[in-house]
């Protein structure tokens, strides 16, 4: 008897997902490629790419993005690794507080942080003015390269922190004891043993930071001033005030994708050099911080968190200050919230929640199905799905936005300006992360559990619904809440796709700030912060552990 392929329900799932991906992922991406190399007359042309590379005004944007992103990545590692080391190897007082606050920092929308820093350290910033008046110190400009690096590093270091906590937790105490036994302790051991053992995680964290920082649109837009980065340039070319050029925006998008793809594969290659897995039987016992070192540790950890969290506190504080236009006045009231209520606050909240919930539901269903196909029904078709599903990981948000607009602005799928297209964008943006965590969760579930169910007479479908999905729930739900946070703070794709009907809290904040209504913006941002905080607290309550999967 030859093994014959049975037509089962999963075959249809494969086909459906194939179609979905083809329409909503591949087609827009092909569209953007086509837009970049085909002239309106329908001829092949590399004109747009030539324009980009021959004109340093444009090519500089990619170089700028690259430079600042590298700097940000290096800084987050420098900030995050020692922080995580102190957190993982010492019994710090208030460790839980440090953890939650750090996570909150990286969950906020980036441009809000940038905006708060301008209010604090900008030309007319509170701290700048105070320092100049009372101490005569000029802190210099925080706009441009420095500002972007500063804002992003303090926003993204928690990613490194969270990743490294996981790695440090997996280091077996006996390894450290063995190293001490052979005379390698202290700082030498930190670099020779601990750092090397954590290298795969360091690389993973670095990639994540790189991708986030490289594609970040909000921060350079708010604080970048003359320092032009490519996501802003894409936006300008697409919607800018100085005449738009869709083909050129598409060409920049293609270049951006190539760059991120190159970095992605470079990271994969580097990670392969450190291929080993660890699981600690004897986790490191945390020491009590003592003496001068202990004090320095407390200063470092609390200082870092205080700086990183300051913008959010300040924004919430400002939201209660009286304000007229872009000037904050003496006294406190709810005037900003009243103004916000008139300016679509209700609709923004409703949309934010709606998008979050619907996008999340779609993401979860797709992720569970795809994870099952990839792990349990491995085939060429399903491996293609796996690869394609990871594509958005390397596509900057603004590129997703433009690709969708270009693809769905005409019939039969005229979706531009609808709520649907916003949800599609959000699903595309977050799906790879949830698929990864769903796949990882499923891989840890032994096949025999499903076989046990089948041998007990349950059909394959019933086994999937009654056994597999419930067992995957924990891993997925915890990841999904973080996706929810990412969805509600999404700016880069939303800014291209939103309109009055599909406005979200993040977009409302952005609009208010960009129009100089700072008090209003602060009120929207404060509401957004409340949402993300609640989501995060729910997450921590559900997941119980501190293993955050991003």
């Amino acid at each position: 008897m030859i093994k014959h392929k049975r037509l089962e329900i999963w075959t249809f799932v494969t086909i459906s997902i194939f179609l979905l991906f083809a329409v909503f992922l591949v087609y827009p991406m092909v569209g953007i490629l086509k837009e970049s190399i085909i002239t309106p007359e329908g001829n092949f042309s590399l004109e747009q790419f030539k324009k980009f590379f021959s004109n340093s005004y444009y090519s500089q944007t990619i170089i700028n993005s690259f430079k600042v992103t590298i700097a940000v990545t290096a800084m987050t590692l420098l900030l995050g690794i020692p922080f995580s080391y102190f957190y993982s190897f010492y019994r710090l007082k208030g460790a839980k507080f440090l953890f939650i606050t750090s996570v909150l920092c990286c969950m906020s929308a980036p441009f809000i942080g940038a905006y708060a820093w301008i209010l604090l350290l900008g030309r007319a910033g509170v701290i700048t003015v105070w320092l100049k008046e009372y101490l005569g110190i000029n802190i210099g400009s925080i706009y441009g390269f420095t500002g972007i690096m500063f804002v992003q590093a303090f926003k993204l270091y928690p990613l490194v922190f969270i990743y490294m906590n996981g790695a440090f937790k997996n280091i077996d105490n006996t390894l450290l004891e063995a190293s001490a036994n052979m005379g390698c302790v202290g700082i030498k051991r930190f670099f020779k043993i601990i750092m090397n053992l954590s290298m795969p995680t360091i690389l993973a964290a670095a990639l994540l930071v790189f991708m986030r920082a490289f594609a970040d649109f909000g921060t350079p837009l708010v604080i970048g001033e003359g320092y032009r980065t490519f996501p802003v340039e894409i936006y300008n070319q697409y919607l800018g005030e100085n005449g738009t050029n869709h083909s050129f925006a598409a060409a920049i998008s293609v270049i951006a994708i190539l760059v991120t793809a190159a970095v992605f594969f470079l990271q994969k290659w580097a990670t392969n050099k450190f291929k080993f897995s660890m699981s600690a039987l004897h986790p490191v016992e945390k020491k009590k911080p003592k003496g001068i070192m202990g004090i320095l540790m407390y200063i470092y950890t609390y200082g870092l968190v205080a700086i990183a969290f300051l913008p959010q506190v300040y924004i919430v504080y400002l939201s209660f200050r009286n304000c007229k236009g872009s000037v904050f006045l003496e006294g406190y009231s709810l005037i900003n919230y009243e103004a916000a209520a008139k300016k679509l606050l209700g609709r923004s909240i409703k949309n934010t929640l709606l998008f979050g919930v619907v996008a999340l539901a779609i993401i979860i269903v797709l992720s569970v199905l795809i994870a099952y196909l990839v792990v349990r029904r491995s085939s060429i078709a399903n491996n293609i799905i796996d690869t394609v599903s990871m594509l958005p990981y390397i596509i900057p948000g603004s590129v997703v936005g433009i690709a969708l607009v270009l693809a769905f602005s005409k019939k039969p799928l005229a979706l531009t300006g609808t709520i649907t297209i916003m949800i599609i964008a959000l699903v595309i943006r977050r799906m790879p992360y949830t698929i990864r965590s769903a796949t990882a969760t499923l891989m840890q579930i032994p096949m025999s559990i499903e076989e046990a169910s089948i041998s007990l007479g349950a059909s394959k479908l019933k086994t999937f619904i009654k056994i597999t999905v419930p067992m995957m729930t924990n891993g997925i739900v915890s990841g999904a809440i973080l996706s929810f946070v990412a969805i509600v703070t999404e700016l880069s794709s939303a800014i291209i796709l939103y309109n009055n009907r599909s406005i979200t809290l993040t977009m409302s904040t952005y609009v208010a700030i960009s129009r100089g209504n700072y008090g209003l913006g602060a009120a929207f941002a404060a509401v957004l912060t409340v949402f993300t905080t609640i989501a995060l607290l729910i997450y921590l309550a559900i997941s119980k552990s501190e293993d955050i999967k991003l």
Partner: protein
Amino acid sequence: MSVEIVIKHACKKYGDTTIIPDLNLSIKKGEFFTLLGPSGCGKTTLLRMIAGFNSIEGGDFYFGDKRINDLDPSKRNIGMVFQNYAIFPHLSVRKNVEFGLKNRKLDKAEIRTRAEKFLKLMQMDTLANRMPERLSGGQQQRVALARALCIEPDVLLMDEPLSNLDAKLRVEMRTVIREIQRNVGITTVYVTHDQEEAMAVSDRIAVMNAGKIQHIGTPKNIYQRPANLFVSTFIGRSNIINGDLVVEDGNTYFKLKNGSKVQMNNVQKKYQKSQPVVASVRPEEFLLCEDKNQGQIKGIVKDSVFLGLNTHYFVKLETGEEVEIIQESTISSIIPAGADVSLRLNAEKINLFTEDGEFNILEGVCNDNIA
């Protein structure tokens, strides 16, 4: 309820590699049958073919007279116990046991009573509402067994069910498994690589190697008259000693390399001719001789291990071969390393194989393998 399992010309391939080339097997109704072999020999693969989790590349599988090759695993009515127990972690003990019954569209009361009965049988009724994460390995094992049995399957399949337990619990659980199987009287196929475990529980054992069955027989038969050299070395310990079969004056002897002869009265007729052979001598089949002149072969004690009941000696024979000998421990002192000893072979118990080790040339081999 319980059925006979017949497997004809089973063939298993992964891509181009053949795991099981051509395997025939017939397991009696109600029998406790064990597949025993080193890892990678295909025993688990065969079990999973019976269960329906591995595709079948050739041959026919029957439960009674029903061919099951194309039957969906969920319709084969098998109970299966997995190496890692495969307890559903999100369901309580009771829900785990009831899971299979619920798939059979029985009414609620019936499900409840049946689950209760098997939980009682496995002495798990007091823990019925616990979640699996709060059970020990042995308790999970009992749940797995109750769950597999309560659907009243035609066949019970067990894939190394004890390998995750500690040594003491393993011995305890194998007695439990044996008792339950006897009580329920269900045809059971059990996979293990632990020969002692196999001997303790089985009615019959099939020793497998490289996808082929080497010997099917009772534990006693497999141990005492192994069908070939592989079985002899895999089951228990065996010292391999080369020598010759010689026929003189109508008597057959096993002639050691030092020239001594051991008279063998149980060589099969067709092999009674002079030829090189291989003897497998179990450690307890060597006898230490008080009188040095009585011995058939001399040696020097290299080392000894005292294990309470027995003492093991490692002896270098005058032929250069190193052997292990087991003696019941005596009150008098242990023979020191370096001492000369003289040994005899227990001719009744040792086994002789053709030079290539393929066949046991003695009488009394019972091999049900119809290869």
